[in-house]
């Protein structure tokens, strides 16, 4: 039998105890002494060493772990708490501890943390706002029951080289489609009537542009909740109306108003209307936010309903199978059969027509066709914003990666110690991930605060109607939470993989981990950030250039000298209009005065007019037509290329004016005054020949970025209520003329308030959409620039940290502060140059894409690229100079003290 080494066994036994936590110095020695006592006692009883040892240890130990636990409990402040090694090791239970460590680390590195949180928070906040905007702008018309099966029929006419898709279509199209195609099970037609209409009940008068005329089938296509009345019969009889709940409340103060009458006035003389039903409001998210439906028979007689050229918005409901493709394939034959001939006769012999089906839910974000009842949202804006939102999120993540890998050296020793103490890499990855998630969660909270501050501005820019309370809706909070978690996870993944890669031995040796001395990744990321910020900035700059360009472009009339007045609405006051105008014309500052029904701030549509060329051929000319009063051309400040204006002294003269574009387009420049306009009656028969008495130089009403259309100008000498009067004032600042004008006005129209506008202001407002878009982009760009700068600051502070000793040695060897500054700044400038090599083309692409929306636009030059580069350069220099200067001026002794 081998000799049993008692001493060694006891030592082994004690060592086994030492693997357990929970013993304090002396505990194990005492237990060892106790074991010896037991063994001694057993051996005295005559047992051999081996069995004594076995018996004694059997008595002592249930298990080493249990023993340790008992010792821990005896010393613990609260004996009921489990010892740490007995606690659950699942990551959830570890989170608070990780967060505690994270907070400790954050306290040490406040500026980094603030930069990181700000970067994340800003991007989360903007993403939230953009999301709210996207959410508001999308999902229109989906609340109708059969939304997926409802289509609007679009009328797409081409003639004489013009292509005009229209939102409304001939009256008989809907009913004919229903009777001809089994796929169409219902149809309805709507028209918007006139401009402003009023409903009156007693003293309450509601004026609105949201009243529609519709046929009795409206409710068969659009599901609407009827509160009172019968929807089957509601819209059958003439002079009946269906009100929405809110309108009924406004008019009557209650909703059970079926059978009541109200007075309706609009394009027709006031008439009594009977309320036949009250429906729930159709909601904000619809492209047809109607407030009242007036029966079709109030407006249209049978003759008009069979007129293929009398337009209405036509919607069809398809069968359960929603056989839209089958229906589409049948449409060409349909339009050939019913529409082609009519159009050839009435519009142009070359006219061709196509019908399209537009899904109801897509209408709101689709392009606007001619005659849309309401302006649409912009899909393009939504797409651009969503793209920028993703950019922002990516940039904030990049920023986190940048800043946390930059500070990784500091965490290296922590990783080393934790690994030495037995942490696995998985544990550590999780630990660092939970840190980044923690940070992102804080950022999420900060983001909510930022959003509260930014919401009013954002709403103003985008027209979003949201309150701070909406910000805190459940969905939004969940979005912010999810966004924070995702960003924390995405941003933290690389840094945690990176930091936990350190070998413990290397990590604990001073200077052992030269983490990312080259740092290609970080530099690459900075380049990406710069490139994003730079290309956006280039684009914004180009938008600014274009806005200036269109505002300053010569539009062919004295837009900055024109004052605009609106004549009173009442007939009585109009009697003094003629006297007012002639007195006005005699004032010395006034170059010209004219009346026009036509608005210089809006463009004009194109029509087809039968003309006779100077050589005597008949031409179907595509000309826009406007009607103006006497002295229009002079008042505008436009010139006559040839010929003259309408003559006030020969009111019976039959003449028209054309513009230069019209003359050039039809090649009449040799002898334009021999061209004629052929007037026609309703059947299309020529009834008379009108001379072209003058050719006007081109002028461009509306947006100046469109081409000047060929134009025909008719005389309309009548004075109607609410007509515009244009006054061309020969003054540097036409507004200074206002007091004098006001006095004159007071004299002639004492009961009417004097109001005027400078035409140029109104024209400039046409570019509000572009300006809004520019503002929005600017704000977003600011954020991208800020995030980039945060990244740069992070990188420079890291670089100066890593190169501290190098800088110190250089200084000792006689390097000057400037040399060191250059040394440190050089790499950033290189990065900036590389970034702009990328940003330039991207910016160019974005800008030229955007510019292509305008038929006339500014040229893309290198100026925006250069300017943007300078701005970025300036920002970069500002960002790095603090750290670089501090590093360059630092006392070298401090950096080298530990060598």
């Amino acid at each position, binding site marked *: 039998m081998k000799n049993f080494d008692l001493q060694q066994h006891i030592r082994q036994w004690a060592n086994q105890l030492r693997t357990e936590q929970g013993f304090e110095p*002396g*505990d194990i*020695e*005492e*237990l060892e*002494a*106790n074991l*010896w*006592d*037991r063994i001694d*006692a057993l051996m005295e009883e005559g047992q051999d060493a081996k069995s004594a040892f076995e018996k004694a240890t059997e*008595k*002592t*130990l*249930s298990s080493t772990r*249990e*023993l340790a636990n*008992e*010792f821990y*409990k*005896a*010393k613990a402040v609260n004996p009921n708490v489990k010892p740490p090694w007995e606690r659950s090791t699942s990551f959830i239970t570890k989170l608070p501890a990780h967060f505690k460590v994270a907070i400790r680390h954050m306290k040490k590195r406040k500026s980094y943390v603030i930069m990181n949180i700000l970067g994340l928070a800003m991007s989360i906040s903007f993403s939230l706002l953009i999301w709210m905007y996207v959410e508001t702008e999308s999902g229109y018309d989906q609340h109708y029951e059969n939304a997926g099966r409802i289509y609007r029929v679009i009328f797409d006419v081409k003639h004489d080289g013009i292509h005009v898709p229209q939102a409304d279509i001939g009256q008989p199209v809907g009913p004919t489609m229903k009777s001809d195609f089994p796929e169409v099970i219902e149809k309805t037609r709507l028209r918007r009537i006139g401009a402003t209409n009023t409903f009156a009940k007693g003293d309450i008068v509601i004026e609105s542009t949201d009243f529609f005329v519709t046929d009795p089938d409206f409710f068969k296509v659009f599901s609407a909740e009827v509160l009172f009345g019968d929807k089957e019969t509601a819209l059958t009889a003439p002079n009946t109306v269906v009100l929405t709940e809110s309108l009924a409340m406004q008019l009557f103060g209650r909703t059970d108003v079926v059978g009541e009458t109200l007075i309706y006035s609009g394009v027709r003389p006031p008439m009594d209307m009977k309320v036949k039903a009250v429906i729930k409001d159709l909601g904000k998210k619809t492209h047809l936010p109607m407030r009242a439906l007036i029966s079709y028979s109030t407006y249209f007689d049978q003759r008009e309903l069979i007129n293929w050229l009398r337009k209405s918005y036509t919607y069809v409901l398809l069968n359960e199978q929603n056989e839209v493709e089958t229906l589409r394939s049948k449409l060409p034959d349909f339009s050939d059969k019913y529409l082609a001939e009519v159009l050839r006769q009435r519009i142009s012999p070359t006219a061709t027509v196509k019908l399209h089906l537009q899904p109801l839910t897509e209408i709101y974000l689709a392009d606007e066709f001619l005659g849309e009842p309401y302006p649409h949202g912009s899909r393009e804006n939504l797409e651009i914003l969503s793209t920028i939102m993703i950019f922002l999120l990516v940039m904030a993540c990049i920023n986190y990666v940048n800043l946390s890998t930059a500070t990784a050296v500091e965490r290296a020793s922590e990783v080393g110690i934790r690994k030495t103490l037995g942490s696995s890499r998985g544990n550590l990855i999780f630990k660092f991930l939970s840190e980044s998630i923690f940070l992102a969660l804080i950022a999420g909270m900060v983001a909510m605060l930022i959003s509260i501050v930014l919401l009013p501005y954002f709403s103003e820019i985008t027209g979003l109607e949201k309150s701070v309370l909406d910000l805190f809706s459940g969905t939004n909070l969940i979005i912010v939470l999810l966004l924070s978690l995702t960003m924390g996870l995405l941003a933290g993944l690389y840094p945690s993989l990176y930091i936990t890669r350190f070998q413990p031995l290397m990590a604990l040796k001073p200077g052992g981990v030269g983490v990312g001395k080259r740092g290609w990744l970080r530099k690459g990321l900075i380049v990406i950030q710069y490139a994003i910020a730079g290309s956006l900035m280039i684009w914004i700059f180009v938008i600014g250039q274009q806005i200036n360009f269109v505002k300053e472009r010569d539009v062919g009339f004295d837009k900055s000298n024109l004052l605009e007045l609106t004549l009173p609405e009442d007939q009585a006051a109009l009697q003094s209009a003629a006297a007012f105008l002639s007195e006005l014309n005699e004032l010395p500052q006034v170059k010209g005065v004219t009346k026009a029904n036509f608005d210089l701030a809006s463009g004009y549509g194109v029509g087809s007019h039968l003309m006779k060329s100077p050589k005597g051929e008949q031409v179907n000319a595509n000309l826009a037509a406007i009607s103006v009063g006497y002295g229009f051309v002079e008042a505008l400040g436009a010139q006559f290329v040839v010929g003259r204006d309408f003559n006030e002294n020969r009111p019976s003269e039959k003449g028209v004016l054309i513009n230069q574009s019209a003359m050039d387009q039809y090649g009449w420049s040799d002898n334009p005054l021999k061209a004629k306009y052929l007037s026609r009656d309703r059947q299309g028969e020529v009834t008379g020949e009108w001379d072209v008495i003058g050719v006007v130089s081109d002028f461009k009403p509306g947006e100046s970025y469109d081409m000047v259309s060929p134009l025909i100008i008719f005389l309309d000498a009548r004075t109607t209520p609410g007509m515009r009067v244009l006054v061309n004032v020969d003054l540097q600042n036409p507004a200074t003329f206002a007091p004098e004008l006001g006095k004159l006005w007071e004299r002639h129209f004492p009961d009417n308030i004097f109001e005027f506008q400078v035409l140029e202001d109104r024209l400039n407002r046409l570019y509000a959409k572009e300006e809004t878009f520019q503002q929005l982009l600017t704000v977003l760009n600011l954020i991208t620039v800020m995030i980039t700068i945060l990244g740069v600051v992070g990188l420079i502070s890291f670089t100066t940290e890593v190169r501290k000793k190098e800088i110190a040695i250089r200084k000792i060897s006689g390097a000057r502060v400037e040399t060191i500054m250059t040394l440190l700044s050089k790499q950033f400038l290189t990065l900036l140059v590389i970034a702009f090599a990328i940003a330039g083309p991207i910016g160019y692409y974005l800008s030229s894409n955007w510019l292509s929306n305008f038929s006339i636009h500014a040229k893309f030059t290198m100026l925006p690229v250069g300017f943007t580069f300078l701005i970025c350069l300036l920002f970069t220099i500002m960002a790095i100079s603090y750290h670089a200067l501090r590093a360059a001026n630092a006392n070298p002794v401090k950096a080298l003290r530990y060598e």
Partner: protein
Amino acid sequence: MAYKTLVAASTKPLVLSILSHGKSYGYQIIKNVEQLSNGELEWTDAMLYPVLHRMEKDGLIASEWIVLDNGRKRKYYTITAKGKEERDTSKAQWNNVNTAFNRLWGANLTLDLG
């Protein structure tokens, strides 16, 4: 084996009472208790030592390492003044319990069970 909670409750008074007879060490205490209880109370190391440490921390007993003739060390415990007080208190309590039981189980007891 005695009931677990009873063991837990009686450990401290037992240790204090044993140490009142003079200083002693862990194994000796275990042996003493075993003999005193006719082998009914068999304490384990895992039970006793933590209790000793707790009592020491609470100031009821004090300890010292003593090097034995064979060169080995052993930790001896002595009762402190505070420990004596504690012992007297618990002695009174246990006596009360004891008296109650003795009476209950005595030969001629009549209980008024109302």
